[in-house]
């Protein structure tokens, strides 16, 4: 038997991901909240939910700060204790960790955790600039380095050290678009070919358009409770049995390794230890594929393969639905979309579907243990969570 549950998910919600014209982040968040409420008739949201933790990255997108209370208000939660967390693209992974702490501490019996971001109304240059704010300003942004640029620096280093190829990177995109074609909430629901990916326009060499995740509007949420209370709300809770969070230098250039995200390795080690599971026990994983190289690094950092073998694992097909360890069955950030603040709990939503047998065409058969891996920026924040079906 693996680790003791830290907290249990009794319901979850996810808005449509994509270009949601005319909708503010708060309105998108209420769509996700409504799904979570409707799927849990035994929950009285206004009476039972004591706190909200919400990941939201950028004030710049909507010129809106103070988004913890804003999301609580728009989810209809009135005077609930609302806390917004910001850790770039790991904002809601960090919110999830905070929500687990709230439940574990005994301070709250039932909490909501989620995330939201509105991005598509901005130009690509504006989005590039706002996202770059999550990197080091005085040396990285000051020298014109973008987020695709930071991951491109890791890709070049990985290719140089291990012989990883642009073709291997592209196989990640092809796989995740294939998975996205089975997800009705994904931003991109069309399969692509290797040739399409390889011939797409350059963003930050060697990363091309199809190596990059999408600019997306979206929101996600979960309802968490103490494991001993879970059956009051549902017969099919999903237990969180491991949680790891770690930090690293804000500047990529100050890290020891340019071919691994050390914070993810540290977070994974903690989560595996807490859950008493090993990488080979994982039946399904949602990993932070903000760029194709990031999924390859994730394979290595999470122990799905050895350092340097991520490109080969991608090519082997073992991470595709039906393979040894299906990764990003939702379509990932690559095809489902990447509304940055909503991504961490959006990954948990997919795992919740998988472990309750509700993932439809993309269901991983007999999935029992799953993992989410959420990275902020170029790796200054990482969270890893491990889940078990009840």
């Amino acid at each position, binding site marked *: 038997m693996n680790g003791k549950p830290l907290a249990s998910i009794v319901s979850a919600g996810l808005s449509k991901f994509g270009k949601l014209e005319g909708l503010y982040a708060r309105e998108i968040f209420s769509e996700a909240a409504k799904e979570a409420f409707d799927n849990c008739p035994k929950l009285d949201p206004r009476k039972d939910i004591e706190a909200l933790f919400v990941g939201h990255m950028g004030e710049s997108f909507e010129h809106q700060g103070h988004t913890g209370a804003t999301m609580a208000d728009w989810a209809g939660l009135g005077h609930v204790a609302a806390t917004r967390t910001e850790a770039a693209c790991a904002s809601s992974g960090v919110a999830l960790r905070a929500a687990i702490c709230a439940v574990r501490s005994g301070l709250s019996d039932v909490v909501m955790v989620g995330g939201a971001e509105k991005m598509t109304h901005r130009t690509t240059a504006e989005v590039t600039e706002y996202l770059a704010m999550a990197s080091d300003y005085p040396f990285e*942004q*000051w020298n*014109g380095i973008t987020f695709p640029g930071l991951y491109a*620096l890791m*890709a070049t280093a990985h290719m140089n050290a291990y012989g990883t190829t642009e073709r291997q990177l592209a196989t990640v995109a092809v796989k995740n678009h294939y998975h996205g074609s089975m997800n009705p909430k994904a931003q991109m629901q069309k399969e692509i070919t290797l040739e399409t990916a390889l011939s797409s326009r350059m963003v*930050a*060499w060697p990363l091309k358009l199809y190596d990059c995740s999408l600019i997306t509007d979206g929101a996600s949420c979960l309802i968490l409770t103490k494991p001993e209370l879970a059956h009051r709300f549902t017969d099919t809770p999903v237990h969180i049995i491991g949680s790891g969070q770690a930090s690293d230098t804000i500047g*990529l250039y100050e890290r*020891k390794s340019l071919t691994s995200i050390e914070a993810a390795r540290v977070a994974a080690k903690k989560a595996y230890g807490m859950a008493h599971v090993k990488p080979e026990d994982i039946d399904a994983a949602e990993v932070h594929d903000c760029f194709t190289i990031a999924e390859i690094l994730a394979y290595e950092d999470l122990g799905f393969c050895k350092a340097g073998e991520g490109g080969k694992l991608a090519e082997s097909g073992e991470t595709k639905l039906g393979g040894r360890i299906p990764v990003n069955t939702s379509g990932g950030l690559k095809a489902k979309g990447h509304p940055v603040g909503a991504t961490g709990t959006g990954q948990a939503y997919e795992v919740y579907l998988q472990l309750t047998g509700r993932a439809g065409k993309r269901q991983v058969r007999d999935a029992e243990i799953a993992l989410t891996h959420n990275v902020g920026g170029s790796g200054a924040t990482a969270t890893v969570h491990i889940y078990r079906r009840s």
Partner: protein
Amino acid sequence: MSEQTPFTIEQFYKHIGQGKLLGAKCRKCGKVHLPPRPLCEGCLSKEFDWTALPAKGKLLTYTIIHIAPTQFQASAPYAVGIVEFEKDLKLPGMIQGVSLEQIRVGMNLTMEFGTAAAIQPWPQWPKYYFKPVTN
């Protein structure tokens, strides 16, 4: 203790403006920080001395930015990379004075010092660039 300039990012860039690459060496444990920081990563000491570093190093990795943020759009495509000056002492920066196709991991680059740049109103830091070593 003698009066010292502060070990700050601003002071680092003042040195760049004077054509010098200086790191901060911890007086207690000897660890060198590039860029400087107020607390030693090795031993949490606050006492440092400036130490001159050779303004040349090896290119560890690079990329060519095609989609640039608003304020750099006019320069795209441009190359940026991470250069290692001494073991574990690295900085990122733009690579100039070489065609984009000729940039290679492992090539030797020197740091060139610019004057104050004025892309944005804040802050007004001088620029540095990396250029290939000319024989």
